[in-house]
């Protein structure tokens, strides 16, 4: 128990260091892959909540299937090993059991298919959306624009390098210099396309992944519940910097989003804010 406490407090200390490193953004909720995680990322949209639920249902079913098959195999291996059962039976038919192991899987598949179909249609059929963002994949960065607002110019979202990420306290290979800004509690339509190679715009915590294909405009949607910064990564091989075109979405309050639009879609300079933050912390000292 003491060891556990020690471990926890070490981890806590580590976390604190990380937080203070990014003084300016420490208050931000950042959602992306979890450290050494082994489960789905946190759900930030209704689609992702549903996706998590369907995943869990299927996961439980397939785990039970594996346990059943492995258990049965172990039982057979012990019970019918040569030393225990020297004379093999000659049975090679049993119509009833063959019917059962055909019909039962069908039933299980129907059980899986129903929630799966619900999720699929929920995810794919766009509801009445309240605004549109356009995402263009480029080798190797993302271009974001707001077709609804003519005063907002298309801007480029480039990855932050390792030093820059440290400076702003965001994870390297996930952080960008200019996130896509969206309001919370708003149904956002996303148009995705590409100007050269294929890419895929993916934000796992939204349950969104859509290929960016040149010559084709794909659409998908999301509605974020809470403010925060959400991370994703390009998910279709697109050349040498495939690993180096992260996706950062910043969900802000509707009021703040209105200010962002009114201001001509000027994305705040993270480094400017950082210097201010550093000055503040220096003053506190």
């Amino acid at each position, binding site marked *: 128990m003491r060891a556990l406490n020690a471990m926890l407090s070490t981890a806590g200390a580590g976390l604190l260091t990380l937080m203070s490193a990014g003084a300016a953004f420490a208050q931000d909720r950042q959602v*992306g*892959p*979890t450290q050494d*995680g082994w*489960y*789905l990322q946190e759900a930030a949209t209704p689609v992702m909540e549903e*996706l998590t639920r*369907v*995943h869990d249902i*299927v996961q439980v079913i*397939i785990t039970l299937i*594996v346990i059943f*098959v492995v258990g*049965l195999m172990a039982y*057979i291996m012990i019970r*019918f090993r*040569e030393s225990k*059962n020297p*004379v093999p*039976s000659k*049975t*090679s038919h049993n119509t009833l*059991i063959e019917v059962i*192991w*055909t019909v039962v*899987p069908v039933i299980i*598949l129907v059980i*899986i*298919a129903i929630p*799966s*179909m619900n*999720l*699929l*249609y929920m*995810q*794919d059929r766009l509801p009445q959306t309240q605004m549109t963002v356009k995402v263009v994949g480029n*080798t190797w960065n993302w271009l974001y624009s707001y077709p609804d607002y003519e005063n907002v110019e298309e801007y480029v979202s480039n990855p932050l390098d390792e030093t820059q990420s440290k400076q702003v306290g965001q994870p390297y*290979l996930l952080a960008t210099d200019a996130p896509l800004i969206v309001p919370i509690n708003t149904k956002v339509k996303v148009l995705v396309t590409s100007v050269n*190679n*294929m890419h*895929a715009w*993916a934000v*796992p915590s939204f349950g*969104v*992944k*859509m290929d960016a*294909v*040149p*010559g*084709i405009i794909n659409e998908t949607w999301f509605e974020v519940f809470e403010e925060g910064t959400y991370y994703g*990564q390009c998910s*279709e*091989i*697109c*050349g*040498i*910097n*495939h*690993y*180096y075109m992260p996706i950062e979405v910043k969900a802000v309050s509707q009021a703040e989003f209105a200010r962002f639009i009114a201001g001509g879609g000027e994305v705040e300079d993270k480094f400017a804010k950082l210097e201010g933050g550093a000055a503040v912390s220096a003053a506190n000292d």
Partner: protein
Amino acid sequence: MVAISGEDIPVVHDDHDEKPRFFERWFYSTNHKDIGTLYLIFGIISGLVGGFLSFMMRLELMAPGIDIFTNEHTYLVFVSMHGLIMIFFMVMPALIGGFGNWFIPIMIGAPDMAFPRMNNLSFWLLPVAFICLMISFFVPGAAEGNGFGGSWVMYPPLSTTGSPGPAFDFIIIGLLAAGFSSIFGAINFITTILNMRAPGMTMHKMPLFAWSVLVTAFLLLLALPVLAAALFMLLTDRIEGGTAFFDPARGGDPQMFQHLFWFFGHPEVYIMILPAFGIVSHIISTFSKKPIFGYLGMAYAMVAIGVVGFVVWAHHMYTIGMDVNVKAYFVLATLVIAVPTGVKVFSWLATMWGGSIRFTVPMIWALGFIFLFVVGGVTGVMLANAGVDTYLHDTYYVVAHFHYVLSMGAVFGIFAAWYYWHGKMFGYHYSGFLSRLHFWLFFIGVNMIFFPQHFLGLNGMPRRYVDYPVEFEFWNQVSSWGAFVTLASVVVFFLVMAEAFLMRKKRKVGNNYWGEGATTLEWTISSPPPYHQFSVLPRIDGGDEDHAH
């Protein structure tokens, strides 16, 4: 099905086991067993090359940062070549070309393949193809680097405008050669199996391995021309001012390539696993000392998998922006495949039920196969659901899934077959201790590599990344340690071969060294078989259809 009676086939009667001289025997060979051996040697060599590539990938991914590779392009070249080599030059040659050639004629009681010279051509196209792929490594590709880094799926525009230089052209030419090799092989197997079965061996008495190769051959015959067409289109699209099949700027459609590719690509995954199904059935039956449970169900389950395998291709493309109703169809069609697959797994278990099970080396590989195939199969059910796949598509979850069914399914099938027929092919046995060590190291190694990759995928790590956020470090590290264990197991495999070869005088085996339970025709002839077997065709007596196979 009208089968030509075996007696009508002219048999050359100069079979005093006089083998041709070395060069003629191994370079002009028309003997199915020699060609099978050549295929196996070829598979081992390409397996080493492909394995080396993946080992370097795991070294790179052991820690965040780009440490091993000098540039990102080379990493992607390794990823792409690993896939292509393992599929076209390791699994397919070993299972179909190697064991298929060796044992299909013997198991159906035929003296040789139907078209021995075409068989020779099938094999020799492969080294040519492989050389083309190897050249591709060293000629200019994208990003001022050498080689092609567009992954084995070769999607345009990355593989057209995105990959200038001759590197990808060499791959196209190599794959076309490999494709023709497989088509010729498929024609040969179909003709052999349909026409050259021994008198009395009806289709429903045919061994399951022959069934599995027959279905595989049909899949090859129908799927590979589509790949060949798609590759030709890529080739002409790549020419400056050439065609524009996949170039949207000139009215083409890049997604069309994906449909063509996966119309080939999905049957391809069954091409790789079906022969392993057949082999595992024989091994389970042999070492349970029982006939296959539900023989007809087993045979037709493979046929069903083959047929349904042609109508599910777009489940590899859920995120390309298909219509939702189309996706719904592909979800349901894909889920259906679980049913015949389940029939196979349960029939294997039922074959063992009531048996008298011996845990020989091939048997533990076959049992390992069943376990790993089930694990890989159920994650397939997860991925079949387009909704959930939106999250998992192109993450490491997919990598884990298909390596469980291929790197572990198909490869466990290959090793099971290797250890099952080793004595039959070479005439001597291998060390029990070393081969068991090989099994356990390999089993632990591959599970260590691939099980954590499920976690990486669930946590959102995308595929084909040379570097990753630090959040993914731990499971990547575990996975890379698994690669070291697997490397050790490969070393042990070569020790098994070397040791067995050195001890070959002391470990001679008889006709049927597995004893009761081994009932197919290869166990009625000597080990190794005579250079030409069955100059007098065996007769398969009547009796209960399902018990005579």
